[in-house]
């Protein structure tokens, strides 16, 4: 059994139990043991990086230190957490001067970043630790009637120089994992473009216009749903459709669903075990189609 420290971050446990539930259930079924460590904090995502980059690196490094002390690699669900932690991990492992600066800050809390652990997104764990064959063999309910618009979110892929997850312009990993469940991963316009989520709260009009584009493009391509990995993308596109309805007087009813939920459903987890009532755009029709 492969063991990981689960880094949950802030948004998933506080707002999206459907993501956490489905991810825990699916990963456990596929032989991954998840350990919840005490002391982890916020990952220090873009809003905190905007306030102070150096502090943000230290906050990310402090979280990695906790995994180092427990001798575990980290797995994240949220792509935002993945970006903050993986970026810090790579930078500090490869830039000794920066590592020294951050370790000076960490010493105030009696911590030291050593740089002997990996930060991985759960898609990497699925690809590399579980393997496509095992996933395909574990599928009980094939999703072969679904056309899925994959939307990984920006921070799974970029900045690719530090995250090293997949080709930033022609990524394949997410689509491959969708197709492992026998669903069709479809192409749609501006597939790799941002959802605008990080502008929510500062420039809501701009954020909503960007989110609307995403929904329109997936809709015109005939998608049954948009599959997400990031809780912020989910919120922006799911709750966003309620705002699109009031602002633009348009209704798309495009189900937004985390990949972990699709995975759980195809592995045979019952919908009632998955807290699906946390979806604003109802996914009943999607569930009917899955069967």
């Amino acid at each position, binding site marked *: 059994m492969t063991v990981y420290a689960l880094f949950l971050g802030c948004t998933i446990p506080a707002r999206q139990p459907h993501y956490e539930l489905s991810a825990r259930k699916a990963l456990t079924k596929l032989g991954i043991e998840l350990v919840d460590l005490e002391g982890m904090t*916020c990952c220090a995502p873009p809003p905190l990086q905007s306030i102070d980059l150096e502090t943000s690196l230290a906050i990310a490094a402090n979280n990695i230190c906790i995994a180092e002390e427990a001798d575990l690699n980290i797995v994240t669900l949220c792509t935002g957490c993945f970006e903050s932690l993986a970026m810090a991990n790579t930078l500090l492992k490869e830039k000794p001067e920066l590592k020294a600066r951050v370790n000076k800050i960490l010493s105030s809390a009696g911590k030291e970043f050593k740089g002997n652990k990996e930060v991985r997104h759960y898609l990497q764990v699925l690809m590399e630790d579980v393997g496509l064959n095992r996933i395909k063999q574990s599928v009980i309910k094939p999703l072969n009637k679904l056309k899925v618009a994959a939307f990984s979110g*920006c921070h799974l892929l970029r900045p690719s120089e530090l995250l090293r997850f997949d080709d930033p312009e022609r990524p394949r990993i997410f689509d491959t994992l969708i197709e492992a469940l026998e669903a069709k991963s479809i192409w749609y316009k501006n597939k790799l473009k941002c959802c605008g989520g990080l502008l929510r709260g500062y420039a809501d009009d701009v954020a909503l216009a*960007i989110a609307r584009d995403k929904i329109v493009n997936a809709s015109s391509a005939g998608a049954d749903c948009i599959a997400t990995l990031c809780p912020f993308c989910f919120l922006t596109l799911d709750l966003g459709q309620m705002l699109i309805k009031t602002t633009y007087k348009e209704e798309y009813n495009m189900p937004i669903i985390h990949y972990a939920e699709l995975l759980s459903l195809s592995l045979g987890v019952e919908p009632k075990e998955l807290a699906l009532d946390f979806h604003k755009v109802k996914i009943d029709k999607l569930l009917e189609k899955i069967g």
Partner: protein
Amino acid sequence: MAEERQEKVTTVEFYKEITSKLGGETITFCYQCGTCASSCPVAKITDRFNPRQVIRLALLGQREEVLTNGAIWLCSSCYNCQERCPQKVEIADVIYALRNIAISEGNIPNIYAEFANALLSEGRIVPISKFLEKKRADYGLPPLKPAGIESLKKILSATGFDKIMPKKGESP
């Protein structure tokens, strides 16, 4: 003549200030090709933000304009521009450096101040409600492990992050 010289001094000082900040190191590599602007999802929607212009103004030494005209807060941090920049300007990181400078002078948008306050008090930027705690238990999710608030506070005080607070009524 005197005015011209004054302008040059300002220019030199601002780009040096930016390149000395974490994230800002590569700003001077820019040759204004505009690949960033054409890759930007925000610039497609609104003319209030154009990454090429932000960099141009910064390199021209328009410190006040760059830090206060609101554009730097409209970057969605998607890194599309940075990924494609032929000069390897780390554009999204340059924007962070500019935001860091603006915020260190008390120019902090409300939404960021809210996140900072939540971080300082809870260790998380999205605190968990009683309702969600109960929901988690109902669904059989384990209780959320306590955040390491004591260590975090020491780190935030070591960098002075805990002193960064918005000046009332001055949020952009």
